[in-house]
């Protein structure tokens, strides 16, 4: 029933990639782990013992797994802080951006797909399909720059980077800027202005990140709706003289929605993480994506290793959950 075996091997595979990535890097792993600054002989020997690099490879891997399970992902070379702490601190920023992009993508993509399916093979369908393919083909890092060019440089409407104006000093409670700025302390100090500022900063990154998911959701919704609309019960509903709104809304959309939800669940996380890497880098958004890119620049391998592991686990668990849910929701798939 549930592909637990495949799930476990994938998890182990990701952990192997994370474990060996650092060992394929040309150069001394100890220097890579502790950084070149702290590499005097005494510290070097201590590091070898602490990291267990004098033990056999299999032992190292098992202890790496054991530490990872307990939430210990090592120490960042550049900041000297816990990788897991840093990832946790940056997670809300990415999540906030991702949820906003997901909402936008569903609210725009699904209706486009429904309309395209209803007016299938007409000019409208062709135009919508072409638009979604164009959206799909636009590199998000270029789109981000274009939006900055238009809305920040030319029209001076929206901010270029960050999550909040520097004028506001909002206490970080949840890490979600839209929530933190609405908490009583921030409200008392700034009223709603801090919240508006956070919302302002969210607009361009959200649009940048949502474009590709909009295109994907529109395509999938169209395909799913086209399939449902060709079913006999739709024809029967039409023959009974039901209004088109009732047919589309009540009969077709409800049945077309399940595959769409599965696609959203399976696809969105992947797209969101890929989008976060480029979007956060362009807009100076302090989330996981920009953290990974700056760690690659700094050759901060423990951070890269930890990020792969965490992202891999999150993706695998989400896919598993979507799989289980869709099987529960659709008896035919069991």
């Amino acid at each position, binding site marked *: 029933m549930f592909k637990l075996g495949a799930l476990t*091997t994938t998890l182990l*595979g990701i952990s192997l*990639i994370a474990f060996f990535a650092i060992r*394929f890097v040309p150069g001394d792993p100890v220097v890579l782990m502790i950084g070149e600054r702290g590499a005097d002989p005494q510290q070097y020997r201590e590091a070898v013992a602490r990291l267990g690099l004098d033990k056999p490879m299999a032992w190292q891997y098992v202890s790496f797994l054991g530490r990872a399970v307990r939430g210990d992902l090592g120490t960042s070379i550049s900041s000297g802080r816990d990788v897991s702490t840093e990832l946790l601190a940056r997670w809300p920023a990415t999540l906030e951006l991702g949820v906003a992009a997901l909402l936008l993508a569903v609210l725009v993509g699904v209706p486009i797909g429904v309309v395209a399916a209803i007016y299938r093979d007409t000019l409208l369908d062709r135009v919508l399909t072409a638009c979604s*393919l164009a959206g799909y083909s636009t*590199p998000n890092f270029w789109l981000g720059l274009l939006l900055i060019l238009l809305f920040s*440089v030319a029209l001076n409407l929206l901010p270029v980077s960050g999550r909040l104006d520097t004028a506001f000093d909002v206490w970080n409670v949840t890490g979600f800027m839209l929530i933190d700025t609405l908490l009583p302390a921030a409200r008392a100090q700034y009223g709603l202005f801090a919240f508006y500022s956070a919302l302002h900063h969210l607009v361009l990154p959200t649009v940048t990140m949502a474009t590709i998911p909009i295109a994907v959701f529109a395509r999938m919704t169209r395909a799913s709706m086209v399939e449902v609309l060709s079913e006999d019960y739709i024809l029967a509903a039409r023959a009974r003289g039901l209004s088109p709104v009732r047919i589309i809304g009540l009969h077709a959309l409800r049945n077309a929605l399940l595959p769409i939800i599965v696609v959203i669940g399976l696809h969105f996380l992947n797209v969101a993480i890929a989008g976060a*890497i480029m979007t956060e880098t362009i807009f100076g958004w302090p989330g996981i994506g920009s953290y990974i*890119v700056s760690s690659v620049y700094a050759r901060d391998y423990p951070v890269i290793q930890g990020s792969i592991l965490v992202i*891999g686990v999150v993706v695998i668990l989400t896919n598993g959950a979507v799989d289980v849910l869709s099987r529960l929701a659709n008896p035919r798939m069991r």
Partner: protein
Amino acid sequence: MRIFTTLKLSNGSVSLKLGSSCVIVLVVLSFLVPLLFDLDPYRISDNLRASIGLWNGSGPLLGTDDLGRDVLARLVFGARNSVGIGLAVVLVSMSVGIPLGLFAGVYGGWIDTSIMRVTGILMTLPTILLAIVIVSVLGAGLLTAMCAATIVAIPGFIRVVRSISALEMKRQYVQAARTGGDSKLQILWSEVLPNCWVPIVAQATLGFGDAILHIAALDFLGLGAKPPMAEWGAMLADARPFIESNPNLIVLPGLCLATTIFGFTLLGDALQRWLNPRTGVH
């Protein structure tokens, strides 16, 4: 060949026409234009820095960048580099992915399971993240960026070829060949592979666009081509400081990049639509 009759059959498809014209323009731009005009993407000119272009009265057609290099020449050579890089990435990933997909589909059993598990692992991480990780391990540079783009493209080929060949193995003519005493390797070569070519061409077309996108993204992050190489992604990264003074430098390379990827996506989409006419999604 089957693929050419295919193209004729769906001649009415707009996306096929539009997609193939984008690709043809790209190829003409990258190989014919440098022969006809004297273009040098590397020449630095001191008196023509950051000029806007012909509508400003003087200088090269599309102006010059911050170092006084001809933007048109850099775009054209960027197109040439993109075609070369895309081709190399697609060919190498095909030559690894197709045999693995065939073996998985034809032999089945533990061979299938192990190949598909590894493919599944590679497909878990988002492609651009995997590419960045590979480049961070191998070191930044165009060659390692191409390696990364190749590795992330392989699973797509494995999946497509494996699903087609597993289906073909259940067909009667394959059963007949088995009863006739053909070995699985013979069947793989003479029965299964010829049926895989159309989906492979569709996947390769989409893969071409993906490869160009991945390389451009890595270039943009500064993990790919080194200056002064003319690369669209690198041109975008170079132009970021001049976004206010010279927006041309942002708009033009991105437009080339987006049009190219759009062309390959349309073309690949039209091919897939032909394979599965009902929905256009496979």
